[in-house]
Protein backbone atom coordinates (compact mmCIF):
# COMPACT_ATOMS: atom_id res chain seq x y z
CA UNK A 1 0.00 0.00 0.00
CA UNK A 2 1.37 3.37 -0.98
CA UNK A 3 0.02 6.53 0.57
CA UNK A 4 0.62 9.94 -0.90
CA UNK A 5 0.05 12.40 1.93
CA UNK A 6 -1.38 15.88 1.76
CA UNK A 7 0.88 18.59 3.14
CA UNK A 8 -1.01 21.61 4.43
CA UNK A 9 0.44 25.04 4.97
CA UNK A 10 -1.27 28.29 5.88
CA UNK A 11 -2.50 28.92 2.33
CA UNK A 12 -1.54 25.82 0.32
CA UNK A 13 -2.21 22.14 -0.19
CA UNK A 14 0.49 19.90 -1.62
CA UNK A 15 -0.94 16.63 -2.90
CA UNK A 16 -0.61 13.72 -5.36
CA UNK A 17 -1.49 14.36 -9.00
CA UNK A 18 -4.98 13.75 -10.38
CA UNK A 19 -6.19 13.26 -13.97
CA UNK A 20 -8.05 16.59 -13.60
CA UNK A 21 -4.71 18.42 -13.24
CA UNK A 22 -3.62 17.37 -16.72
CA UNK A 23 -5.25 20.12 -18.82
CA UNK A 24 -3.93 23.05 -16.83
CA UNK A 25 -0.39 21.71 -16.55
CA UNK A 26 -0.37 20.89 -20.28
CA UNK A 27 -1.48 24.45 -21.05
CA UNK A 28 1.15 25.94 -18.76
CA UNK A 29 3.95 23.76 -20.08
CA UNK A 30 3.45 25.46 -23.45
CA UNK A 31 4.24 28.84 -21.92
CA UNK A 32 7.86 29.99 -22.26
CA UNK A 33 7.35 32.27 -19.24
CA UNK A 34 6.76 29.15 -17.12
CA UNK A 35 8.71 26.34 -18.80
CA UNK A 36 12.03 28.05 -19.43
CA UNK A 37 13.69 27.02 -16.15
CA UNK A 38 12.10 23.59 -15.84
CA UNK A 39 13.44 21.91 -18.96
CA UNK A 40 11.40 23.70 -21.63
CA UNK A 41 8.28 22.64 -23.53
CA UNK A 42 6.65 19.29 -22.81
CA UNK A 43 3.76 17.95 -24.84
CA UNK A 44 0.51 16.54 -23.53
CA UNK A 45 1.83 12.96 -23.35
CA UNK A 46 5.00 14.00 -21.57
CA UNK A 47 3.06 15.98 -18.99
CA UNK A 48 0.77 13.03 -18.32
CA UNK A 49 3.82 10.79 -17.96
CA UNK A 50 5.44 13.22 -15.52
CA UNK A 51 2.31 13.30 -13.37
CA UNK A 52 2.31 9.49 -13.19
CA UNK A 53 6.03 9.40 -12.56
CA UNK A 54 5.76 11.84 -9.67
CA UNK A 55 3.03 9.75 -8.03
CA UNK A 56 4.95 6.52 -8.66
CA UNK A 57 8.00 7.99 -6.99
CA UNK A 58 6.19 7.68 -3.64
CA UNK A 59 6.12 3.89 -4.05
CA UNK A 60 9.75 3.71 -5.09
CA UNK A 61 11.28 6.15 -2.59
CA UNK A 62 8.68 7.29 -0.10
CA UNK A 63 8.56 10.82 -1.48
CA UNK A 64 7.69 12.53 -4.75
CA UNK A 65 7.00 15.80 -6.51
CA UNK A 66 3.50 17.17 -5.85
CA UNK A 67 0.81 19.34 -7.36
CA UNK A 68 0.20 22.47 -5.30
CA UNK A 69 -3.18 24.18 -4.93
CA UNK A 70 -4.70 26.99 -2.90
CA UNK A 71 -6.37 25.61 0.23
CA UNK A 72 -9.30 27.95 -0.04
CA UNK A 73 -10.36 27.39 -3.66
CA UNK A 74 -8.46 24.31 -4.84
CA UNK A 75 -6.98 26.34 -7.68
CA UNK A 76 -3.62 24.95 -8.84
CA UNK A 77 -0.74 27.39 -8.48
CA UNK A 78 2.21 25.18 -9.48
CA UNK A 79 4.19 22.21 -8.26
CA UNK A 80 6.80 21.44 -5.67
CA UNK A 81 8.25 19.00 -3.20
CA UNK A 82 10.87 16.30 -2.95
CA UNK A 83 12.16 14.39 -5.91
CA UNK A 84 14.96 12.16 -7.07
CA UNK A 85 14.37 10.88 -10.58
CA UNK A 86 16.86 8.54 -12.26
CA UNK A 87 20.13 10.38 -12.91
CA UNK A 88 19.76 12.99 -10.15
CA UNK A 89 22.92 13.47 -8.08
CA UNK A 90 20.97 13.31 -4.79
CA UNK A 91 17.45 14.01 -3.51
CA UNK A 92 16.19 17.49 -4.35
CA UNK A 93 13.82 20.07 -2.97
CA UNK A 94 12.15 21.53 -6.07
CA UNK A 95 9.40 23.99 -6.94
CA UNK A 96 7.87 25.99 -9.77
CA UNK A 97 4.99 28.45 -9.50
CA UNK A 98 2.76 29.49 -12.42
CA UNK A 99 3.67 33.06 -13.47
CA UNK A 100 0.38 34.63 -12.38
CA UNK A 101 0.87 33.29 -8.85
CA UNK A 102 4.48 34.32 -8.38
CA UNK A 103 5.53 37.03 -5.96
CA UNK A 104 3.12 36.02 -3.19
CA UNK A 105 5.49 33.91 -1.14
CA UNK A 106 3.91 30.61 -2.15
CA UNK A 107 7.24 29.04 -3.15
CA UNK A 108 8.80 29.87 0.22
CA UNK A 109 5.74 28.56 2.05
CA UNK A 110 5.65 25.23 0.20
CA UNK A 111 9.38 24.58 0.20
CA UNK A 112 9.64 25.17 3.94
CA UNK A 113 6.84 22.64 4.49
CA UNK A 114 8.45 20.09 2.18
CA UNK A 115 11.86 20.49 3.79
CA UNK A 116 10.32 20.09 7.26
CA UNK A 117 8.76 16.82 6.03
CA UNK A 118 12.13 15.66 4.68
CA UNK A 119 13.93 16.48 7.95
CA UNK A 120 11.31 15.36 10.47
CA UNK A 121 9.59 12.38 8.78
CA UNK A 122 11.96 11.07 6.13
CA UNK A 123 15.26 11.22 7.96
CA UNK A 124 17.03 13.48 5.46
CA UNK A 125 20.17 15.03 6.95
CA UNK A 126 20.83 17.36 4.02
CA UNK A 127 19.01 18.71 0.97
CA UNK A 128 19.82 20.63 -2.17
CA UNK A 129 18.01 22.40 -5.00
CA UNK A 130 18.99 22.44 -8.67
CA UNK A 131 18.49 25.99 -9.95
CA UNK A 132 19.14 27.56 -13.33
CA UNK A 133 21.66 30.39 -12.86
CA UNK A 134 19.32 32.82 -14.68
CA UNK A 135 16.34 32.01 -12.45
CA UNK A 136 16.45 34.99 -10.10
CA UNK A 137 13.08 34.28 -8.49
CA UNK A 138 14.09 30.75 -7.43
CA UNK A 139 17.48 31.92 -6.22
CA UNK A 140 15.60 34.41 -4.06
CA UNK A 141 13.51 31.61 -2.56
CA UNK A 142 16.61 29.49 -1.89
CA UNK A 143 18.24 32.41 -0.08
CA UNK A 144 15.13 33.01 2.02
CA UNK A 145 15.32 29.39 3.13
CA UNK A 146 18.94 29.94 4.12
CA UNK A 147 20.52 27.97 1.28
CA UNK A 148 23.91 28.82 -0.20
CA UNK A 149 25.40 28.26 -3.63
CA UNK A 150 27.56 25.14 -3.54
CA UNK A 151 28.47 24.30 -7.15
CA UNK A 152 28.12 26.02 -10.51
CA UNK A 153 26.95 24.39 -13.75
CA UNK A 154 26.45 20.77 -12.74
CA UNK A 155 25.30 18.48 -15.57
CA UNK A 156 22.17 16.53 -14.62
CA UNK A 157 20.80 14.09 -17.23
CA UNK A 158 19.99 16.51 -20.11
CA UNK A 159 20.39 19.93 -18.45
CA UNK A 160 22.84 22.01 -16.44
CA UNK A 161 22.05 23.71 -13.13
CA UNK A 162 23.65 25.19 -10.03
CA UNK A 163 23.46 23.25 -6.77
CA UNK A 164 22.13 25.24 -3.81
CA UNK A 165 22.73 23.58 -0.44
CA UNK A 166 20.06 23.99 2.23
CA UNK A 167 20.71 24.42 5.92
CA UNK A 168 21.03 21.14 7.83
CA UNK A 169 18.06 20.18 10.05
CA UNK A 170 19.10 21.83 13.34
CA UNK A 171 19.99 25.17 11.75
CA UNK A 172 16.94 25.10 9.53
CA UNK A 173 14.61 24.51 12.49
CA UNK A 174 16.33 27.24 14.51
CA UNK A 175 15.69 29.74 11.71
CA UNK A 176 12.26 28.63 10.48
CA UNK A 177 10.69 26.52 13.25
CA UNK A 178 9.54 22.91 13.17
CA UNK A 179 5.87 23.38 12.29
CA UNK A 180 4.17 24.68 9.17
Amino acid at each position, binding site marked *: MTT*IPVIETERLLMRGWHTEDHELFTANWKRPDWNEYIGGFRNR*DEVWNLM*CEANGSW*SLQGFGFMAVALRETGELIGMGGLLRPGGWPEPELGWSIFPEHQGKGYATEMTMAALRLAYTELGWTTAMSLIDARNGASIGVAKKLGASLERHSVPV*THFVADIWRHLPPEQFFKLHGKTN
Partner: protein
Amino acid sequence: MKVEFEIPTLETQRLRLRGLAETDLDGFASIYSDAENARFIGGVVSRHECWRKIALMIGHWHIRGWGIFALESKANGQFIGYCGPWRPDSWQHDEIAYSLVPGQSGKGLAAEAARRAIRFAYESCGWAGAVSYVDAGNEASRRVAQKNGARRDGSATILDDETVEVWRYPSPRQFSALFPSWGSA
Protein backbone atom coordinates in the same frame (compact mmCIF):
# COMPACT_ATOMS: atom_id res chain seq x y z
CA MET B 1 -7.71 13.95 0.21
CA LYS B 2 -4.67 11.77 0.77
CA VAL B 3 -4.27 9.12 -1.87
CA GLU B 4 -3.74 5.43 -1.29
CA PHE B 5 -3.26 2.74 -3.84
CA GLU B 6 -2.37 -0.90 -3.71
CA ILE B 7 -1.08 -3.10 -6.48
CA PRO B 8 -2.40 -6.66 -6.10
CA THR B 9 -0.33 -9.80 -6.68
CA LEU B 10 -1.70 -12.31 -9.19
CA GLU B 11 -0.44 -15.72 -10.27
CA THR B 12 -0.34 -17.94 -13.31
CA GLN B 13 1.10 -21.41 -13.66
CA ARG B 14 4.68 -20.15 -14.02
CA LEU B 15 4.51 -16.46 -13.13
CA ARG B 16 3.81 -14.05 -10.32
CA LEU B 17 2.39 -10.67 -11.38
CA ARG B 18 3.26 -8.03 -8.75
CA GLY B 19 4.00 -4.32 -8.40
CA LEU B 20 7.23 -3.04 -9.92
CA ALA B 21 10.06 -2.18 -7.51
CA GLU B 22 13.37 -0.37 -7.70
CA THR B 23 15.12 -3.76 -7.55
CA ASP B 24 13.63 -4.55 -10.97
CA LEU B 25 15.69 -1.78 -12.57
CA ASP B 26 18.49 -4.04 -13.90
CA GLY B 27 16.09 -6.45 -15.58
CA PHE B 28 13.86 -3.63 -16.78
CA ALA B 29 16.82 -1.76 -18.25
CA SER B 30 17.87 -4.91 -20.14
CA ILE B 31 14.58 -4.77 -22.04
CA TYR B 32 15.32 -1.23 -23.20
CA SER B 33 19.05 -1.57 -23.78
CA ASP B 34 18.67 -4.40 -26.28
CA ALA B 35 18.36 -2.70 -29.68
CA GLU B 36 16.56 -5.61 -31.33
CA ASN B 37 14.02 -5.78 -28.51
CA ALA B 38 13.62 -2.03 -27.98
CA ARG B 39 12.94 -1.11 -31.58
CA PHE B 40 9.32 -2.17 -31.11
CA ILE B 41 8.78 -0.29 -27.86
CA GLY B 42 10.01 3.18 -28.69
CA GLY B 43 13.75 2.54 -29.04
CA VAL B 44 16.72 2.16 -26.72
CA VAL B 45 16.52 4.22 -23.53
CA SER B 46 19.05 4.87 -20.78
CA ARG B 47 19.01 3.39 -17.30
CA HIS B 48 17.94 6.79 -15.94
CA GLU B 49 14.99 6.88 -18.28
CA CYS B 50 14.14 3.32 -17.27
CA TRP B 51 13.90 4.41 -13.64
CA ARG B 52 11.46 7.08 -14.77
CA LYS B 53 9.47 4.54 -16.78
CA ILE B 54 9.14 2.32 -13.72
CA ALA B 55 7.92 5.29 -11.67
CA LEU B 56 5.50 6.18 -14.46
CA MET B 57 4.15 2.63 -14.62
CA ILE B 58 3.57 2.60 -10.85
CA GLY B 59 2.01 6.07 -10.92
CA HIS B 60 -0.36 4.92 -13.67
CA TRP B 61 -1.99 2.72 -11.00
CA HIS B 62 -2.74 5.81 -8.96
CA ILE B 63 -4.18 7.78 -11.88
CA ARG B 64 -6.19 4.93 -13.46
CA GLY B 65 -6.61 2.40 -10.65
CA TRP B 66 -4.88 -0.30 -12.69
CA GLY B 67 -1.61 -0.67 -14.55
CA ILE B 68 1.50 -2.64 -15.34
CA PHE B 69 2.73 -5.59 -13.27
CA ALA B 70 6.25 -6.88 -12.92
CA LEU B 71 6.51 -10.50 -14.09
CA GLU B 72 8.48 -12.75 -11.81
CA SER B 73 9.33 -16.40 -12.34
CA LYS B 74 7.65 -18.48 -9.62
CA ALA B 75 10.49 -21.00 -9.91
CA ASN B 76 13.39 -18.68 -9.12
CA GLY B 77 12.02 -15.20 -8.40
CA GLN B 78 13.75 -13.71 -11.44
CA PHE B 79 12.30 -10.59 -13.10
CA ILE B 80 11.39 -11.66 -16.63
CA GLY B 81 9.37 -8.72 -17.97
CA TYR B 82 6.24 -6.65 -17.49
CA CYS B 83 2.61 -6.89 -18.50
CA GLY B 84 -0.70 -5.28 -17.64
CA PRO B 85 -3.61 -3.01 -18.47
CA TRP B 86 -2.26 0.29 -19.78
CA ARG B 87 -3.65 3.56 -21.04
CA PRO B 88 -1.34 6.57 -21.31
CA ASP B 89 -3.02 9.79 -22.30
CA SER B 90 -2.73 9.44 -26.09
CA TRP B 91 -3.91 5.81 -26.22
CA GLN B 92 -7.22 5.36 -28.01
CA HIS B 93 -8.01 2.00 -26.40
CA ASP B 94 -7.65 0.17 -23.13
CA GLU B 95 -4.55 -1.84 -23.91
CA ILE B 96 -2.87 -4.95 -22.56
CA ALA B 97 0.85 -4.22 -22.79
CA TYR B 98 3.63 -6.77 -22.46
CA SER B 99 7.38 -6.97 -22.91
CA LEU B 100 9.93 -9.58 -21.88
CA VAL B 101 13.59 -9.46 -20.90
CA PRO B 102 15.74 -10.63 -23.85
CA GLY B 103 16.16 -14.38 -23.75
CA GLN B 104 12.76 -15.01 -22.12
CA SER B 105 10.74 -15.09 -25.31
CA GLY B 106 9.67 -18.27 -27.10
CA LYS B 107 8.40 -20.00 -23.96
CA GLY B 108 4.83 -18.73 -24.02
CA LEU B 109 5.41 -16.53 -20.97
CA ALA B 110 4.11 -13.30 -22.51
CA ALA B 111 0.88 -14.99 -23.61
CA GLU B 112 0.48 -16.58 -20.17
CA ALA B 113 0.95 -13.21 -18.45
CA ALA B 114 -1.28 -11.34 -20.91
CA ARG B 115 -4.09 -13.87 -20.42
CA ARG B 116 -3.99 -13.24 -16.69
CA ALA B 117 -3.86 -9.47 -17.23
CA ILE B 118 -6.88 -9.60 -19.56
CA ARG B 119 -8.78 -11.55 -16.91
CA PHE B 120 -7.81 -8.96 -14.31
CA ALA B 121 -8.94 -6.12 -16.59
CA TYR B 122 -12.28 -7.79 -17.34
CA GLU B 123 -13.05 -9.04 -13.83
CA SER B 124 -11.54 -6.36 -11.61
CA CYS B 125 -11.27 -3.18 -13.70
CA GLY B 126 -14.64 -3.25 -15.47
CA TRP B 127 -13.24 -3.37 -18.99
CA ALA B 128 -15.78 -4.35 -21.69
CA GLY B 129 -13.05 -4.89 -24.27
CA ALA B 130 -9.28 -4.99 -24.60
CA VAL B 131 -6.69 -4.68 -27.33
CA SER B 132 -2.93 -4.86 -27.70
CA TYR B 133 -1.00 -2.39 -29.81
CA VAL B 134 1.55 -4.14 -32.02
CA ASP B 135 4.27 -2.39 -33.99
CA ALA B 136 4.19 -3.35 -37.67
CA GLY B 137 6.89 -5.97 -38.08
CA ASN B 138 6.81 -7.24 -34.51
CA GLU B 139 5.90 -10.82 -35.38
CA ALA B 140 6.56 -12.16 -31.90
CA SER B 141 4.19 -9.69 -30.29
CA ARG B 142 1.52 -10.36 -32.91
CA ARG B 143 1.73 -14.09 -32.19
CA VAL B 144 1.32 -13.46 -28.47
CA ALA B 145 -1.90 -11.53 -29.15
CA GLN B 146 -3.16 -14.20 -31.55
CA LYS B 147 -2.56 -16.94 -28.95
CA ASN B 148 -5.07 -15.14 -26.75
CA GLY B 149 -7.64 -14.97 -29.51
CA ALA B 150 -6.94 -11.42 -30.73
CA ARG B 151 -8.00 -10.36 -34.24
CA ARG B 152 -6.75 -7.39 -36.23
CA ASP B 153 -8.99 -4.35 -35.75
CA GLY B 154 -7.40 -1.58 -37.81
CA SER B 155 -4.69 0.78 -36.67
CA ALA B 156 -4.25 3.54 -34.12
CA THR B 157 -2.06 6.62 -33.94
CA ILE B 158 -0.34 7.21 -30.62
CA LEU B 159 2.22 9.72 -29.34
CA ASP B 160 1.25 12.18 -32.11
CA ASP B 161 2.68 10.32 -35.08
CA GLU B 162 3.29 6.65 -34.35
CA THR B 163 1.02 4.13 -36.09
CA VAL B 164 0.44 0.76 -34.48
CA GLU B 165 -1.67 -2.26 -35.35
CA VAL B 166 -4.69 -2.78 -33.11
CA TRP B 167 -5.31 -6.41 -32.13
CA ARG B 168 -8.64 -6.87 -30.37
CA TYR B 169 -9.23 -9.61 -27.80
CA PRO B 170 -12.53 -11.48 -27.49
CA SER B 171 -15.15 -9.86 -25.25
CA PRO B 172 -15.29 -10.91 -21.59
CA ARG B 173 -18.00 -13.51 -22.28
CA GLN B 174 -16.22 -14.95 -25.33
CA PHE B 175 -12.92 -14.91 -23.53
CA SER B 176 -14.14 -16.94 -20.58
CA ALA B 177 -15.60 -19.49 -23.02
CA LEU B 178 -12.33 -19.64 -24.93
CA PHE B 179 -10.16 -19.94 -21.83
CA PRO B 180 -12.32 -21.57 -19.14
CA SER B 181 -9.46 -21.60 -16.64
CA TRP B 182 -8.41 -18.07 -17.65
CA GLY B 183 -4.82 -19.24 -17.37
CA SER B 184 -4.99 -18.57 -13.66
CA ALA B 185 -3.18 -21.72 -12.60
